[in-house]
């Protein structure tokens, strides 16, 4: 049984169909990249998978209908990391990571031993302990990205949905974040990440889904899904392929 499965998802805003008949499944232990041009419907689809917006079609979480779950039960099953790593108040990093435990336990008690263990583990994995006491707004973009990820991991939900987790990060932090996601997948999480960097997607993802004009137009191992002909038709770029380690990854050469 898949950790998360969606079939025939259709979503409209007004009369415009944003997502058309999209189906996908996500298994424990895999990191899946969702790629596609701007406006393809990736974020809209992901918000439906997180249970934040209604959609036509069927979404199940570990076999249970997503819509049948209460908000907290759903939150324990799916963790969602939105774009942009938003932190409005200068709360300290540890309090931010602790928010990931909000769906657990009763709302009027303080952190349980399980909560403490999850927070410690999430902060250790993301190497954010050294600024546990710092106001999150004083961190750099890369540090904020790691804190945001620690918050999402602290929930210890089986499914993690991440919307452009590497956007606006320097090359080193892009690699750091992708390695964190890959390790989380190895530890049994099912992870779906929206990505724009096809090279990173090809290097780190176990599987790639390509979305275009609301439809999922291709799915498969990175080398097949991101073949040059498809990149030409979907993204309008002429891609070259280079070897990085034991993998062949695409680089967008020029716009067609």
């Amino acid at each position: 049984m898949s950790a998360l499965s969606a079939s025939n998802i259709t979503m409209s805003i007004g009369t415009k169909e944003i997502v058309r008949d999209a189906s996908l499944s996500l298994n424990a232990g895999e990191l899946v990249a969702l790629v596609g041009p701007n406006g393809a419907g990736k974020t809209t689809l992901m918000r439906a998978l997180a249970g934040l917006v209604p959609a036509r079609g069927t979404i199940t979480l570990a076999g249970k209908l997503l819509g049948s779950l209460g908000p907290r039960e759903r939150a324990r099953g799916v963790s969602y990391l939105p774009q942009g790593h938003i932190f409005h108040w200068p709360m300290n990093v540890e309090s931010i990571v602790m928010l990931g435990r909000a769906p657990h336990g009763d709302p009027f008690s303080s952190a349980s031993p399980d909560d403490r263990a999850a927070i410690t583990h999430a902060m250790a994995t993301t190497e954010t302990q050294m600024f546990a006491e710092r106001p999150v707004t004083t961190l750099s973009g890369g540090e904020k990205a790691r804190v945001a990820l620690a918050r999402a991991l602290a929930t210890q939900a089986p499914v993690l949905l991440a919307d452009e987790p590497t956007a606006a990060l320097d090359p080193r932090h892009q690699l750091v974040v992708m390695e964190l996601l890959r390790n989380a997948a190895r530890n049994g999480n099912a992870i779906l990440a929206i990505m724009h960097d096809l090279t990173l997607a090809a290097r780190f993802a176990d599987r790639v889904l390509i979305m275009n004009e609301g439809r999922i137009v291709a799915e498969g191992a990175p080398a097949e899904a991101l073949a040059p002909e498809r990149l030409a038709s979907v993204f309008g770029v002429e891609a070259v392929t280079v070897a990085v380690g034991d993998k062949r990854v695409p680089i967008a050469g020029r716009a067609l």
Partner: protein
Amino acid sequence: MGRFRIEIALTALILVLPVISLMVGPAGLSPRAAIAGLLSGEGPAGIIVREIRLPRTLLAALIGATLGLSGAALQGLLRNPLAEPALFGAPQAAAAAAALVIAFGFAPVTSFAVPGAGILGALVSIAGLVAIAGRRASLTVTLLAGLALASFAGAMTALILNLAPNPFIALEIAFWLLGSLEDRSSDHLIIAAPFMLASWVVLGVNARAFRALTLGEDAAASLGTDIGRTRIMVVIGVALGVGAAVAVAGAIGFVGLVAPHLVRRAVGSDPARVMLPAALAGAALVLAADVAIRLGPSAVEIKLGVVTALIGVPIFLSMIFRERRLLEGADS
């Protein structure tokens, strides 16, 4: 204990300020006489303390706490340190309804009918906001609808002043709008307190939602927060509490905006933990302002809303300068 230092300090402050509040006035009382009068209720001191100064003192504390809590809740909901209780128009609606009664209802400023009308005005404004914006409206639509309502209520108040049957009534309304606790009785306390206490409960239960909202609406929703319900509860809670406060005491500016700021840093900017100290700080501010009024040399009693702003602005400015760096960091 260190964790709750700010709460303890503020609690000590609002235990001391009421005693001072019971002591000061045209007839000064010693602390001992004030407390003896409060406990026995006998003699001139007993009457002064129990019937004149106690309702005023309790109202000051309740109104201040309500304003501080409402400010903290709105700032938490909107993730914006500039949010303040007048944002959704409830205080303006309460003021307009109260002005209407003073102008044409033949009720004196201190009668029971004025707060009753004010609270009714605030309730009508909630109904109006929900009707215009809809129960599931986005934050922007709710804010714009609130702005429209606030402007409309402000225009109504101006119109009432404009059409007031005689200049004395116009002046009476104008003074009433400046906010005061002069001559408020236990009747005022009884009509307003239930609404304020209800607002504390409605706002307080959303504390954890405000904390989650520091991550933005989507992330908060993904953590199990019902954003739509939180928003409607804050609108209702603020309207109940601040509407009742304005209805009995007129407009008391700045407390709702400044109280959360005064204590925010002490609680690490946590929008849930800021609520209790913000309420305590609001109570302390209004109590202190009301004491300052009675200590002042002026023959005419300076209005409460004037004093809270005069005290609040310098504190606010000094705090902005002290925390400029942190505040600017939070915007990026």
